[in-house]
């Protein structure tokens, strides 16, 4: 669908917010999990795999942001 320039601009800003905010959310979550995971790995190196698995879980949030951003981008 064709949007007028202002609406298109707003939509692109929206896309930016979608991925930016999702990135912040992921960052906050990963920061805390990462700290705990490093602590666990320091105590028992065998925890590395489990730690990594838990650490990367919140990354899906930013992927959602990415998908939404591109859906908006597609509309423009």
């Amino acid at each position, binding site marked *: 669908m064709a949007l007028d320039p202002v609406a298109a601009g707003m939509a692109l800003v929206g896309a930016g917010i979608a991925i930016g905010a999702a990135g912040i959310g992921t960052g906050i979550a990963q920061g805390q999990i990462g700290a705990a995971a490093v602590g666990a790995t320091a105590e028992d190196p065998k925890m*590395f*795999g*489990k730690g*990594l*698995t838990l650490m*990367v*879980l919140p*990354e*899906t949030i930013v*992927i*959602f942001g*990415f*998908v939404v951003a*591109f859906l908006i*981008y*597609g509309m423009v």
Partner: protein
Amino acid sequence: MLRPEEMTRAVVVGSIDSLDATIECLYELGVLHLIDFTAQDEEFKLGQPMAKASDSSQKLLKLRSMIRSLEIEGHKPGQRLQVSDISRKMEQALVTLDLNTTSKAEARQKIQTLIREKESEIKALEPFRGFGVPVEDYEGYDNIMVFSGTCRTDPNPALTAKLKAFELFRKQRKADVAIALFVRNDERLEASRILAEHDFQEIKLPRLKGDPEEIIAKNASEIKDLEADLARIENELDSIRKQFADFIIASEEHLAIQVLKAETPLRIATSANSFVIDGWIPTSRVHEIQTALDTLCCGLAFVETVESEKEDEPPVKLKNPLPAKPFEFFINLVSTPKYDELDPTLVLFITFPIFFGFMVGDLGFGLGLMALGGLMRWKLKRFPDLYKLGAIVLAGGFLASLFGLLVFAEAFGVPFHPPEEAPDEHSWEVVANIPIHPRLDKMHDSMEMIAISLVVGWLHLTLGFVFGFVNNYHHSKKHAAAKVAWLLVLFGLFVEIMTVAGSATETSHFINSTVLVPIPDAATTVIGVDVSLPAVGLIVVGVAGLIITEGPLALTEVVGLFTNLVSYARLAALSIGKGAMALAFNSMLFPLIFESGNIVVAILGALALFVSQMFFVFFIGALSSGIQAVRLNYVEFFLKFFEGGGTDFQPLSYERKYTVATK
């Protein structure tokens, strides 16, 4: 391949006289995973260590203490020593070493302690030199309190204003003021308060006598002498080190192996006349162990295979084709699979390089990664983990080059040809006209790439549930049925996504017109979104199945499954992100390099381009692509079927690095 090595439970039994020989034989073969004997009774007790155990461990202890004294823990002998040579020279060498090393190491330690003491005395007295007050005069008063230490600022004005009588010695130093304050007891609280305001830090003086100046001078000259002694002893130790380091390290290895063998009877059952060793043997090697025991123990020990019981948990030795072996590294990072679980190494071997290659998708970086992987294989054999990682990087780099060459048609973030949408973009056309055009353009076909990612996700997750079905089939038909229900839900979600995508992307068009042809094309529109009725049907049937098999709580995870599917969009995201990053650097720096006309600016621009490409795109990009490719396997794939917690197969065996067994 998908199953670990088949294990057979076996007992080795024999006459007690042949125990030592049997243990030797088992260690040489390295195929028996021993089960520790615990259930002692009237007949069977834990065995006694071999006769040589005590002597060997004593020598081992001596050697290890020498290794510490000589500080040769990390020494690697240049050549391997014959075991017979070690045994022949051992006694003599131990005596010589004991005489030379022990006393010298002790002396060295004493001298070091003395030097440390003297130095700390100097450090403690340093602030008070020049005050002219002997050390003994800083304490031992009934009515006077002494404060010795440092202040941030000079406390004299404040003390003069507040105290009636005091004596203050002070010396301005680089960052603080050294002070010695003598006050009457009744004014000590006030004095202490004032000092606290000036950030007073107390320094305790050592219990010595005499002027600090003299003591410091005396200590300094003593330290000089001690250091000369220390250097002499170090020299002597160094010559011992040169002469004996190889021998000591090799002997330590040899003795450690001897002690390991000699103490093995402590783990097995023995009676007055016989012994029983219980354990697991790879089924393919049972025959080998039988023949070896027959020849080595002259028929005094036998191996007997036993029917394993249901609750037995055999140890796990992963069995994969040689190229897939390095990928076991990823499995070991999580957990060893259980014996009756499917081993996902092979899937990782296939999916990891593909995911990684798709995300990196660049001929230049791919070749760079292959070179890096090759270098790791070539140079890092000593570090097993990095060596394995080398093969993984090599495989990932290979696929990245392939994707870069055939799909994205770009190298170092620069396309072979400028995209139709942006004909002015920099491209390799300047250098050569490569006859390959991109099938996908990272910057302009993003929806296509997301669609491809989702299809890959569906395939990968489906495989995960199939693995889950197989793993559960023998234990619990109900759990296996739940996996089928999950498969239905997943398929429903996939059909719905493809319905929504319709013909917007080539991928969804292709899937809709091939794989999904048997699915009836019945769709309705709910608040502007196309909803496929067969998809809803599949999801409803699947969810009903889940409620029956796993209970209503499983419903909460249905959304999770959708999340899993969308999660594969990271394949596209990383690829686009990397492409965008490379494009950004290139479009900023190329004009500097080619259009500035100034050679210095051009060189600086080229350097900046190289560094930014290397760091941001190559290392960070490869690292994040690697982590994401592993994550898709660990989180999305493994959680569908993998339990882990199996026992690693650790046969009785040893490794000689610095010694050679003499026949």
